[in-house]
């Protein structure tokens, strides 16, 4: 069953149309990697899905309902999507533990004790439970990103969205974050990942989606899209990125 289904999605910034009639869906438990060259609209698509950008047209179907309908509560919908940003965006005024509890307490109305228990569980999974009292500025990039993943997981979302989670990291820290993501993928989490890490996509993705100039050009299992692409544009892109 599709967790999220996108139909005829379009997005323009002024006269610049960034997404054109995008259709795709993410199934429950599926790991989808979104690839494409810079400026092709990958981030915009992800940001449209959780409404950080308002789509110009189309539908986003969640649990059978179009959440772009006026009556839908955007805040409530967003709690079902976990977002991990390229720049981590940990709350600078909160320590590691509170980064993972503030949303649970304020938005999901969980008790502080319950929120802390859940937060600690996910901090343990990402290997950051020894840093509960640290402030973001005391952490390395890789550590920040792992906390950001725990923060998103603490809300128990139905699907995790990652926007180039390793692109802002020093090379030696990329591994620790990918390891956590691999673990999540193996654990049956539903994930939509924008990435430039082709090896990683090959390993963990159930499906790879290649985007170019605001349209989905090709999608399918990694063995097809990444190893034996059908479209000229996909071949070109892979040739450019793999060398």
């Amino acid at each position, binding site marked *: 069953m599709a967790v999220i289904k996108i139909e005829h999605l379009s997005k323009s910034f002024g006269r610049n149309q960034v997404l054109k009639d995008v259709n795709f869906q993410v199934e429950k438990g599926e790991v989808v990697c979104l690839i494409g060259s810079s400026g092709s609209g990958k981030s915009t698509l992800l940001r449209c899905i959780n409404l950080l950008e308002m789509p110009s047209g189309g539908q986003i179907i969640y649990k059978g309902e179009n959440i772009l309908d006026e009556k839908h509560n955007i805040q409530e919908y967003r709690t079902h999507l976990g977002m991990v940003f390229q720049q981590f965006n940990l709350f600078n005024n*909160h320590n590691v533990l509170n980064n993972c509890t503030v949303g649970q307490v304020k*938005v999901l109305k969980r008790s502080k004790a319950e929120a802390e228990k859940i937060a600690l569980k996910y901090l343990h999974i990402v290997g950051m439970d020894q840093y509960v009292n640290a402030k973001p500025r005391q952490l390395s990039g890789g550590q920040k990103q792992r906390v950001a993943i725990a923060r998103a997981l603490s809300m128990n979302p139905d699907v995790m969205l990652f926007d180039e989670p390793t692109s802002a990291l020093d090379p030696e820290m990329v591994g620790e974050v990918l390891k956590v993501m691999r673990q999540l993928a193996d654990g049956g989490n539903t994930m939509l990942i924008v990435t430039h890490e082709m090896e990683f996509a090959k390993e963990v993705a159930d499906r790879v989606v290649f985007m170019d100039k605001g349209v989905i050009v090709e999608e399918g299992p990694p063995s097809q899209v990444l190893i034996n692409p059908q479209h000229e544009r996909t071949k070109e892109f892979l040739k450019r990125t793999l060398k």
Partner: protein
Amino acid sequence: MSLEWIISIVENNWQMFLRGAYYTLLISIISTIIGALIGFFIGIMHTIKVRKKGVKYYSLKIINFILTCYVEFFRGTPMIVQAMVVFFGLDMAFGIDMHFITAGILVVSLNTGAYMAEIVRGGIVSIDKGQYEAASAIGMNHFQIMLNVVLPQVARNVLPATGNQLIMNIKDTAVLNVIGVTELFFQTKSIAGNNFRYFESFFVACVMYFIMTFTASRILLYVERRLDGPDAYQKEQKEAI
């Protein structure tokens, strides 16, 4: 000899000096706090974004225009003149006979608020928009984001500027002597008026002002350091579950 005079002035008038210093500190501290709150209020009003139509938009525009007039007026006129206008003006126009301490706090607060408004607005604008987006992404509404994520960071960022305002206020409350506030300058003037030792009396006041401002700046620096904590984090070994 000056030094002997200074000692005898302190011995004979220490209570008046202290009472003056007390009012100076009282007015400065209360006014800085109220001024900071005014600054936060205006800073928040100036950074609210609403869609460019409807009653909400135009009400906000009108309120912000009035707030801007207030800011410009209080930044563009001398505090000593503001003190006179507020103290005598309110009495004349509305028959409000304010206690001079209240008038003093009112003037200094309004003055501080005008300066803090711009500082807070800048503080809000300078917060990385990723902070706002991350909070939106976990489902917080605008109010929750401001309260739990943005404003605490703004408060930390404007703390040095607020401390600076406090120090300015400790010095600038001296102008309130024109409306009869018995702060340190006023008291010193009376003391000197009695003993005719102007230099020695004001030398004592000078030292007292410096002690107050210097202590304030050290305390603020300490608070800032405490809030920030160390640069490196000592991880907790026993925390693992």
